[in-house]
């Protein structure tokens, strides 16, 4: 099939539609052939009714005229619907931003911004994708699920949510929702790779779920069944080709929702799942009250208005539950306590993850009364120090959570409570800096407790184990230290000749000396960013001017390299798809780049 033909003119519509129907009525050319019992297509006769109808139509000559008439009408309805699918497909292709696709294709013609390691010869030409591939892949995926789409068209009613399953599973807040329905061990088994990356260090944390499509289906089902059972959901999931199993669409929630897996080849960088997701939204939004839920931006899709939606979680401390509501994308979650609602700077305050683990008795009924005096704070300090000495992490976390809740309470009458609020606020600063200082000889414990009290990932601490303790002390606590001890951590991704001058010449990957230097540069770059994350987390808590100057300087160093990598990220993505040692280096660069983005690099609330 030629996509250009499909696009060419409306006069071709009937021909293409015939092809669409013909393939539909014969074999499923595009369907994988091996079935999986657990997740084989969960459709009853009503879903496969078109096949059943054909069979009846051909074999049973004794059908009464009314039945024949019904069958004819049903087939006509299907034909009309498929025509609509095809028509929307053509219109949708025109909505894809050709400029961005072409820009991606033209990288080979651009100047090499991170050295000649990314030269043409090192990139497999077969991995270049274009609009034709994009269109064909989308056509194939629509073809595969056309019966499911028809079923949705016929049977779904009410609001439809089109969910970006991959995006949801990678989001920390939805992971917390999933966690409510799993044991700690199960949760860790599913998300260990996501949080900690690969054992060999090639894949950074928060870059790959590394879950089978069956596992993804199961996790998505947990969210849909437990939190979205009022809606008709269409969930798009992506997964790599499996040799031993074949996954088809799965209806869940008494057929109120459907999960559609999109299987892709590892060399395909065109994000087929996103194209199908947007297509389904584009198609059904004309028919139903339809919302698309995703945290992505889909810049390649030309569509007017703020059409993207996302879930907002309401952490309700009054009812001890978490509610889900649909709102505009990029809206912060909220916390509700004593009927007061506050927007939650979630990234910085994940103490909320303890919502179901709070112990009432641990806080001695301390409610934040406005008559509280300094004596109480002294008692609190003494208690906290005791907990710190006893390494009673649970009590420390519970106390801190309670203080945050008191702050919320006091905020309701801000003007009258301003002095008390300041006292509590200062107390939290005191508490956290005390914890940092108390555990500074044991980074394992410090990492553990800060991970629970702040947004800081324990992984940041895990990653810095390779540094010796005196160096870390100097970096974090010696505010006069100007990072001169990090001067060796400069990175030059260019090949540098003996004169120290950058030359944009080809790196010979067979010369091991150059390979080692190149790898060392990247390792150094990774080290710098790890230290930056550590410094940024601690300097906010310690709030020291010299420390802030220090991290601003380190950030500048890092960004010089980051910007170079970012400008060539699509090229790096292509080159990292092979399994040679040389390509693995770029896999680590790509993975680290995603890790940094997840940690908020270059994402600012203006």
């Amino acid at each position, binding site marked *: 099939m030629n996509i250009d033909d499909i696009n060419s003119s409306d006069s071709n519509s009937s021909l293409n539609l015939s092809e669409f129907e013909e393939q539909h009525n014969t074999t499923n050319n595009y369907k994988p052939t091996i079935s999986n019992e657990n997740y084989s297509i969960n459709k009853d006769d009503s879903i496969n009714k078109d096949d059943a109808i054909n069979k009846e139509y051909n074999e049973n000559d004794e059908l009464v005229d009314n039945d024949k008439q019904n069958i004819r009408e049903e087939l006509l309805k299907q034909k009309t619907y498929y025509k609509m699918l095809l028509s929307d497909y053509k219109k949708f292709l025109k909505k894809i931003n050709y400029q961005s696709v072409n820009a991606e294709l033209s990288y080979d013609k651009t100047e090499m911004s991170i050295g000649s390691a990314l030269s043409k010869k090192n990139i497999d030409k077969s991995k270049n994708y274009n609009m034709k591939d994009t269109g064909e892949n989308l056509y194939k995926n629509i073809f595969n699920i056309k019966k499911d789409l028809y079923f949705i068209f016929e049977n779904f009613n009410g609001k439809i949510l089109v969910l970006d399953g991959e995006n949801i599973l990678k989001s920390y807040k939805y992971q917390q929702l999933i966690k409510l329905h799993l044991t700690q061990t199960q949760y860790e088994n599913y998300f260990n790779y996501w949080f900690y990356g690969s054992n060999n260090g090639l894949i950074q944390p928060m870059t790959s779920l590394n879950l089978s499509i069956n596992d993804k289906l199961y996790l998505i089902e947990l969210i849909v069944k437990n939190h979205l059972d009022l809606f008709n959901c269409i969930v798009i999931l992506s997964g790599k080709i499996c040799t031993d199993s074949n996954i088809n669409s799965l209806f869940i929630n008494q057929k109120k929702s459907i999960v559609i897996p999109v299987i892709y080849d590892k060399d395909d960088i065109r994000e087929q799942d996103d194209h199908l997701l947007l297509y389904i939204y584009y198609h059904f939004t004309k028919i139903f009250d339809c919302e698309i839920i995703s945290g992505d931006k889909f810049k390649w899709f030309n569509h007017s208005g703020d059409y993207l939606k996302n879930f907002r979680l309401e952490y309700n401390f009054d009812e001890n539950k978490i509610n889900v509501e649909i709102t505009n994308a990029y809206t*912060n979650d*909220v*916390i509700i306590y004593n009927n007061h*609602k*506050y*927007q*939650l*700077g979630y990234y*910085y*305050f994940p103490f909320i993850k303890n919502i179901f683990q709070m112990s009432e008795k641990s806080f001695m009924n301390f409610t934040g009364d406005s008559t509280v005096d300094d004596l109480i704070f002294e008692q609190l300090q003494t208690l906290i120090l005791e907990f710190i000495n006893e390494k009673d992490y649970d009590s420390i976390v519970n106390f801190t959570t309670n203080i*945050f809740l008191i*702050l*919320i309470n006091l*905020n309701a009458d*801000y*003007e009258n409570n301003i002095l008390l*609020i300041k006292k*509590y*606020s200062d107390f*939290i*600063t005191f508490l956290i800096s005390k914890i940092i200082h108390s555990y500074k000889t044991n980074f394992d414990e410090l990492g553990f407790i800060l991970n629970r009290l702040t947004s800081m990932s324990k992984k940041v601490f895990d990653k810095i184990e390779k540094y010796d303790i005196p160096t870390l002390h100097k970096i974090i606590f010696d505010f006069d230290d100007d990072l001169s001890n990090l001067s060796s951590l400069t990175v030059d991704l260019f090949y540098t000749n003996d004169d120290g001058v950058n030359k944009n010449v080809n790196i010979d990957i067979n010369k091991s000396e150059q390979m080692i230097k190149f790898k060392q540069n990247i390792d150094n770059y990774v080290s710098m960013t790890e230290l930056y994350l550590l410094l*940024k987390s601690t*300097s*906010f808590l310690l*709030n020291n*001017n010299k420390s*802030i*100057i220090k*991290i*601003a*300087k380190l*950030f*500048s*160093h890092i*960004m010089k390299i980051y910007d170079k990598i970012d400008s060539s990220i699509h090229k790096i993505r292509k080159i990292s798809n092979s399994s040679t040692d040389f390509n693995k280096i770029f896999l680590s660069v790509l993975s680290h780049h995603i890790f940094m983005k997840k940690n908020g690099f*270059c994402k*600012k609330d*203006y």
Partner: protein
Amino acid sequence: MSDYKISNKITIEHKIQEFWEKDMWKSNIKHIHNDRIKDVLCQIQKLTSSIKPNKKFYLMTDGDFKIKTDPKIESQIEKLKRENINYIKTHADSIPEYHNLIIEYKKKSLFLSPNL
């Protein structure tokens, strides 16, 4: 929405807005190590300081005097700001004053923002 929430929102938005419009351009260059930001700030600060008192125009607006600087220099400054503001915003962590603003914002909002 309570009055306090509204006033709090206005204060926060105003402070951030004010930072991008005014304070950021006065940041201490000594502590900035991003070459492009440093260069832009140097140029702007140099241009600003080049405006001499005798090059200022005093205009009467709404019963008050408003100082109008040399339009040529002013347009040069505006052009520099306009061409670089996006880059500076995405690289704002290179500016210690930005860190201070965010920390102050977090502390003042007491680790929480009203649901506005």
